[in-house]
């Protein structure tokens, strides 16, 4: 029979968060990316490159908010694992659903 563990976890310390000016710069960056997304909407281009470009911009915005505004870049790794697990699970489950129904082939 194994001996119960008596070691207590260490308290994780937060790193320094960005300053107000840095938060405003991040918001400006997000506004510029949003502007680029809207500008792309009015550009006449093929569907595939358009969808890929928009998806990349969406991921950039999503990651920026999560890392800097939600402090996931500076906080405990446990939070990152919990959130990313939910996110990855959702993406996998619903990609399987959408592929099952041939959504990406336009044959629903």
């Amino acid at each position: 029979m194994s001996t119960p563990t008596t070691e207590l976890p260490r308290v994780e310390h937060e790193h320094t968060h960005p300053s107000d000016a840095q938060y405003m710069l991040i918001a400006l960056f997000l506004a510029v990316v949003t502007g680029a997304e809207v500008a792309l909407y009015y550009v006449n281009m093929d569907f595939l490159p358009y969808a890929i470009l928009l998806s990349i911009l969406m991921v950039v915005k999503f990651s920026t908010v999560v890392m800097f505004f939600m402090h996931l870049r500076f906080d405990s790794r446990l939070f990152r694992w919990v959130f990313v697990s939910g996110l990855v699970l959702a993406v996998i489950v619903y990609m399987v659903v959408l592929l099952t129904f041939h959504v990406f082939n336009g044959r629903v």
Partner: protein
Amino acid sequence: MSTVESTAETLRTPPAGQQHGGHHQPQPGEHGWTQTGVSNEKLGMWVFLGSECLLFGGLISTYLLYKHTAVQGPRPHDLYDIPFTSVSSFVLLMSSMTMVLALAALQRGDHHRTRVWLVTTALLGATFISGQVYEFMSFVKEGMGYTTNTASSAFFTLTGFHGVHVSIGIVMLLSLFVMSLRGRLPQEKSEVVEIVGLYWHFVDIVWILIFTVVYLIP
């Protein structure tokens, strides 16, 4: 001393690294005690947000499944007003900035600025909701109601659920504002604002997905 008694004694005694500074460290059974080394409340919010990914993933997938299946009436993407929705998206994005500024102000002990940024965030959220109500009303005027077709049902369910989340966020922000006015939001309780902020940023990132996947990609 038995193994169980020894373990209990160890749990009652905080590790050396947590005894400095004369601070009272929460003991097992006390409020604030954590076995993970991180705040239980914050961990709870992150678990909740992880589960919300599945909820919104389901709603977005349902919309993608049904968006081309309308057999009668206008479909959502026939009626989108992209410039209008772009402004709404910008407003919600900026509310994330004001939210994080409110938290930073409270962490510095600047209560006046905390209140200013909390109210600004709530107002930006209310502006977004007003825009959504206007959009819904204009769609209904154009002949696309909730039950017009499967695409419209999926669209209203998805964006409506998001709107409800934003509205709940506004209520939480105003509650924090009132708490601050009554002096019940001291600097030491900044984690409360941080947890509400996590929720608020989450509704923002969900809208980042909806804006691209639902509105911009045809």
